[in-house]
């Protein structure tokens, strides 16, 4: 855009007749930079190399004629939007029609008036400039309004995204909605249509999602986030009139990743099939929903589909721009190629993988300019081992004071909730909290008794199939056998602690080392 404004536009004149060339050069040289080609092949070479802003093309030339040159220019993504004006002595309607069919924008017959040539060239260049400006605006809308930022603090997940805007922005959009530290929603979509209308509609849909989420959350209990199918139904009913008015529709996939349950629930509305790579079998499956795109008037109720996943799995969401990228022979990149490529490289980190997907599509189409927007969002489920190193050990030291019990519980809860894959549900964590409260209270009350200013050290360890919680104190020795069995008839107020501990964790070991340090070690199987 800016280069077009600063320097004179480049016009290519293609003609085999020197007299005609001279005439056109003299007519245009004051206002434009000019290139000249004397046959079809030279015209194609010049265009490929210099990308002129407009081409004046003679029809009758030896070798490749003007129709053929024009046809070739129109099939290549890089050159298909360059305006072509035919200049020829042939005046019959059939010829003009054929020229337009070949992709010409306009037609000037010889002998021509210089004023007419000037006027038509000027008109088409300003139309081109207007089209480019629209694309510029639309791509601005896309960058700022259509593409959301992924949540950064969801445990056990890697998100990477790729967008290559096309020359004709076509309303691809995606966004993320974080529900809590273990759950987020992702929506990817594609508006039918191109340019500013599609981009604006995409932005409107995104704002509808935000509004609907807001309303649904206000209506329901705050702990209950509305289901994806409920969200899509509400967005659809609030937009159907507008979509019908402008006669368009939207394909999308709305997916919720629940890292506590390792469950994906998604509503697919005619979008591209999402790829699910399974780490255990090293194979991919394709996720397809049962719903029609948004904007289709008579909709069955929207239905969501549930899919469970495992550590190491990977999900690939994308727009048709990716699988419909063409090579120079018009062959599509295709779903199968993408699936095979993902399967072969799924071991990589999401960010790396998305980079090589980009490289593969560019290498395939031998171009980094595409007909459609190309968007792709990867959601990788981290393997347990990769994040284990971060949280496999934790330490806490407390005073021998009963007011510290809450800290012990918080420490243990945080540790349990931070285990990748979330093998412990809330009920089990509640029981573990109970056990550690009893252990700590016993140490404070019995091992240290009346002594103040003493310390208790607590280690939490994550091993392959269990967690170990160790409580160290330097108080009196403790022999569990010396403690009488609990009485459950209501006649005693105490004596339940050891019973609770042994019934809430999988194993308890009490020991004392030579330095007089007591250790209570609790094991919880995962």
């Amino acid at each position, binding site marked *: 855009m800016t280069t077009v404004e600063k320097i004179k536009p480049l016009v290519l004149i293609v003609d085999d007749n020197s007299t005609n060339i001279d005439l056109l050069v003299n007519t245009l040289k004051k206002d434009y930079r000019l290139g000249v080609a004397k046959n079809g092949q030279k015209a194609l070479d010049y265009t490929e190399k210099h990308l002129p802003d407009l081409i004046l093309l003679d029809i009758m030339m030896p070798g490749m004629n003007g129709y053929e040159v024009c046809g070739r220019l129109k099939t290549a993504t890089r050159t298909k939007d360059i305006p072509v004006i035919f200049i020829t002595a042939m005046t019959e309607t059939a010829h003009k029609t054929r020229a337009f069919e070949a992709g010409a924008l306009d037609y000037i017959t010889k002998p021509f008036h210089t004023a007419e040539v000037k006027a038509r060239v000027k008109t088409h260049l300003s139309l081109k400039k207007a089209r480019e400006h629209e694309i510029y605006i639309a791509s601005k809308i896309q960058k700022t309004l259509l593409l959301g930022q992924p949540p950064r603090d969801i445990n056990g997940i890697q998100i990477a995204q790729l967008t290559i805007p096309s020359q004709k922005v076509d309303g691809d959009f995606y966004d993320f909605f974080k529900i809590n530290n273990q759950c987020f929603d992702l929506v990817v979509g594609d508006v039918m249509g191109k340019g500013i209308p599609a981009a604006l509609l995409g932005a409107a849909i995104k704002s509808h999602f935000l509004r609907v989420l807001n309303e649904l959350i206000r209506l329901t209990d705050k702990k209950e986030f509305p289901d994806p199918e409920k969200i899509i139904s509400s967005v659809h009913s609030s937009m159907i009139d507008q979509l019908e008015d402008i006669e368009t529709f939207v394909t999308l996939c709305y997916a919720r990743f629940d890292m506590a349950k390792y469950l994906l629930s998604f509503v697919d509305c005619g979008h591209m099939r999402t790829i699910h790579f399974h780490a255990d079998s090293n194979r991919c499956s394709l996720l397809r929903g049962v719903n029609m795109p948004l904007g289709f008037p008579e909709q069955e109720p929207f239905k969501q589909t549930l899919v469970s996943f495992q550590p190491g799995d990977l999900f690939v969401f994308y727009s048709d721009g990716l699988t419909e990228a063409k090579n120079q022979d018009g062959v599509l990149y295709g779903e199968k190629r993408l699936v095979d490529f993902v399967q072969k490289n799924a071991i990589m980190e999401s960010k790396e993988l998305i980079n090589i997907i980009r490289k593969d599509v560019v290498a395939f189409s031998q171009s980094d300019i595409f007909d459609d927007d190309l968007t792709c969002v990867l959601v990788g489920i981290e393997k347990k081992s990769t994040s284990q190193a971060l949280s496999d050990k934790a330490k806490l030291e407390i005073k021998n004071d*009963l*007011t510290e*019990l*809450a800290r012990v*519980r918080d420490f243990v809860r945080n540790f349990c909730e931070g285990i990748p894959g979330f093998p412990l549900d809330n*009920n089990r964590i*509640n*029981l573990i*909290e*109970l056990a550690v*409260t*009893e252990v700590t*209270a016993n140490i*404070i*009350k019995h091992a240290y008794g009346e002594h103040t200013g003493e310390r208790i050290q607590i280690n939490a360890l994550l091993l392959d199939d269990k967690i170990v919680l160790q409580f160290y104190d330097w108080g009196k020795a403790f022999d569990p056998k010396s403690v009488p069995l*609990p009485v*459950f*008839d*209501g*006649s*005693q*107020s*105490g004596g*339940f*602690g050891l*019973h*609770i501990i042994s*019934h*809430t964790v999988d194993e308890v070991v009490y020991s004392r080392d030579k330095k007089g340090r007591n250790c209570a070690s609790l094991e919880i199987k995962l």
Partner: protein
Amino acid sequence: MKLSTEKIGEVTVVTVLTEVLDASNAEEFKTATAPILKESNKVVFEISQIKFMDSSGCGTLLSFLRQLKSSNGNLKLCRVQEPVRILFELVRIDRIIEIFDTKEEAIKSFKMGI
């Protein structure tokens, strides 16, 4: 510790306004409740606020129960949260103290006999 009491006929309903009842505040709970148990021998504890209880909490409730029974009264519980209910089952308090879903049911049970 904050307690709110309400006298309904012969029954005193004590709403326990704490989220945690463990070894750190069981004594405090005992002290705060003592005057109530002197006034009334039919007591319902509404414990919906309590999210966490340990064996000290259980022990305190059992000592209240013994005290009330010795004065020909009783102690009942209502609106028990899930984690606390699991603890009660573990130490078998659910077999010794009657537990009700609502305050009204607990009060009604007193009218039908201790």
